[in-house]
């Protein structure tokens, strides 16, 4: 029988991969002997038989051998029996077949799980909205699930009257719903010096984008009678153990900041600040104070711990830049991306995300040759200010090595920089605010890996 291996859409393995792991290891370590050769032959025959039959490896939808695809020819059990009843899950869950897409911690990044971060699986997202259960987390002293009936929110400082609001109060006030990205200032920090992690989940996964609903902070500040002459800054403070504090300048506080209680149509999740958090569009996530309990209006910045020890940018001169908080224009290709594998030569849709803390995305260019030449990608709607924008690009992979990059431009005309351009200004010991162009190398096997290029 001639073995004709059809072009398969699945990861096509050398026949050795049908072998048991122990046998593979034994061959690797001790070489072949008669016994192992015998096992090898048997396994090889079984594997090629499976290939020839088309049952094990055929790509779903590809032309089958014989009469056709058994999945079409034979009625399946689920088509011949009752399905599950309605409301079996009062709060729906993703399909069990989607369980690979999870928030994940980076091993060794932090010693304590309460002051840690979980990364969102950007490699599996569609469109621009992050599902609430996959929104990245970053906590400073552990997350809490705070009874909303007992939550209080206070505004004090340079206001006519210091006031206390309950959740009932806040949810009666005029609300807005806006879609914004949130990105940790340390997102992509591992890549400042060199390539350090394998996949887009870990290089860029401290990024999420939701529709946040709440009361504009300006409404609340006006309700308390903010002293518009003296007020220069506000302090936002959390109600958890860390009592996280961040300074925000008054122009921004009165602009598009939201005291938010909902995201993507439901109340905030506990990990994201339930029942109340600050939304500071375009600004690094640490300023989006969770479990928000207080806003104080003042005339000077506070130099809080995370404004004086972390989230400051060390310059080559030895000076730290303090209060760097704008997340500048950035983009990343999410498919194909590091740790993934192209199944086959031919057509591929390159897709990714672009965003800017200074406004809307104007354009995204994509390169498949490491930045020598660029083509402009399609932007998918909606394109909103300080929000993720999805881009797509048609590409035919010829099977040769390639280096994919994306480069975003925002409405101010700012062009996303190369890593070397960032290092020229900020040196190599910076940590935060790495918005450099990301490069993904594709080798002849279709395997995608994280690289940096010059």
């Amino acid at each position, binding site marked *: 029988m001639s073995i004709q291996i059809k072009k398969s859409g699945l990861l096509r393995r050398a026949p050795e991969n049908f072998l048991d792991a122990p046998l593979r290891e034994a061959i690797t370590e001790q070489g072949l002997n008669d016994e192992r050769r015998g096992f090898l032959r048997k396994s090889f025959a079984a594997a090629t038989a499976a290939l020839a039959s088309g049952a094990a490896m055929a790509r779903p939808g590809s032309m089958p051998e014989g009469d056709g695809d058994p999945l079409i020819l034979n009625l399946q059990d689920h088509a011949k029996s009752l399905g599950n009843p309605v409301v079996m899950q009062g709060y729906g869950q993703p399909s069990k077949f989607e369980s690979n897409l999870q928030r994940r911690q980076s091993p060794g990044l932090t*010693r304590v799980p309460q002051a840690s971060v979980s990364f969102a699986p950007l490699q599996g997202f569609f469109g621009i909205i992050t599902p609430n259960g996959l929104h990245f987390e970053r906590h400073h002293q552990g997350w809490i699930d705070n009874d909303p009936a007992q939550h209080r929110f206070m505004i*004090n400082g340079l206001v006519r009257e210091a006031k206390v609001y309950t959740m009932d109060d806040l949810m009666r006030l005029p609300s807005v719903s806006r879609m914004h990205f949130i990105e940790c200032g340390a997102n992509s920090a591992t890549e400042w010096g060199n390539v350090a992690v394998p996949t887009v989940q870990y290089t860029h996964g401290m990024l999420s984008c939701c529709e946040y609903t709440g009361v504009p902070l300006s409404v609340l500040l006006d309700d308390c009678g903010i002293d518009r002459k003296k007020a220069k800054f506000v302090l936002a403070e959390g109600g958890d153990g860390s009592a996280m504090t961040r300074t925000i300048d008054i122009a921004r506080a009165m602009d598009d900041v939201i005291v938010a209680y909902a995201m993507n149509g439901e109340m905030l999740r506990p990990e994201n600040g339930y029942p109340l958090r600050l939304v500071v569009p375009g600004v690094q996530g640490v300023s989006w104070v969770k479990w928000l309990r207080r806003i104080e209006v003042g005339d000077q910045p506070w130099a809080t711990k995370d404004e004086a020890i972390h989230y400051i940018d060390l310059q080559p001169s030895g000076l730290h830049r303090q209060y760097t908080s704008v997340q500048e224009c950035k983009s990343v290709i999410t498919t194909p991306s590091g740790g993934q594998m192209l199944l086959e030569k031919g057509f591929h849709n390159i897709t990714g995300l672009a965003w800017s803390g200074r406004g809307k995305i104007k354009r995204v260019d994509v390169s498949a040759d490491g930045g020598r030449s660029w083509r402009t990608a399609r932007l998918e709607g909606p394109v909103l200010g300080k929000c993720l924008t999805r881009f797509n690009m048609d590409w035919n992979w010829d099977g040769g090595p390639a280096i994919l990059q994306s480069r975003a431009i925002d409405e101010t005309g700012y062009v996303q920089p190369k890593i070397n351009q960032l290092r020229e200004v900020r040196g190599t010991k910076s940590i935060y605010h790495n918005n450099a162009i990301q490069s993904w190398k594709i080798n002849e096997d279709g395997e995608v890996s994280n690289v940096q290029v010059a």
Partner: protein
Amino acid sequence: MYKWPELRKSLSVLVLAGFSLAASAADYTNIGRAATPKEVAAWDIDVRPDFRGLPKGRGSVDQGQQVWDGKCASCHGTFGESNQVFTPIVGGTTKDDVKNGRVAALTGNSQPQRTTLMKVATVSTLWDYINRAMPWNAPKTLTTDEVYAVTAYILNLGGVVADDFTMSNENIAEVQKRMPNRNGMTQSHGLWQTSGKPDVKNTACMKDCLKEVKITSELPAFARSANGNPVEQNRTIGAVRGVDLSKAAVIKVSAPAADEGLKLAKQYACTACHGVKDKVVGPGFAQIAAKYKGDANAEANLIKKIKTGGSGAWGDIPMPPQGHIKDADIKTMLDWVMRQ
């Protein structure tokens, strides 16, 4: 910070200046209420660089050391130098830095890690953070005087204040003048305000942008599997799959041991100080298991130790009491520990 009489005063000023309810777009009757002065005082705990908000109090370096040894050293090391749980607080500053207000080591490569004292420019930042968030597992439990004392102790370790120093609200401004990196911050950059100017400029070249493309950094082989196996982190349908490192490469993916006891140990942050096998700050779990194996009273003694804390058995660094952990959870953890 703003007491009621002050508010009344500022109200009259505001009205005179033409600021009034007119500034408000609408009248939200019966929404929210005035905060009482006591409520404001209870929450208004922030301390600014100009020391606005700083309560009266005092604490000596010696008193600080006592608090430190009992409540801080387990995470930060006896001398604030520990890198085991959090980044070091003390180290990398010199007498010259105290004189100049700029930490010289920030420009060179002499310091492998930037410590808190190398970076922090304002003493208020230390005071405020210790007051609001420390000790890490029991925030806001220090008295005002203890916060002064611990701040003084840290600064003493860094050579900023003398051994016999007592820090108070009255002399804290003098301490500020000795902060090693007090002149080490700049705010003249465009990355804070929305209208600020970016510091990096790229152009949108489209063709022949580079002569050759050089790969300057690639993932080292050992790091390929450090974040797990990509095949388990990608969708099983669609345009791509995750690379299967268990098949595609010689590098083995080590699956983390999933065990209820370990899960609890992580949840309660025990793993911050205890390694599974080896000593971190405290002994490794395997070391504890080896020591108490065959001891009939091990469980009872260890439960007591976890709940009330202790010191001496494994070295000088004390174990802080963990009274908040449920008995059932302690038993689950101990059962797991003893099997290590």
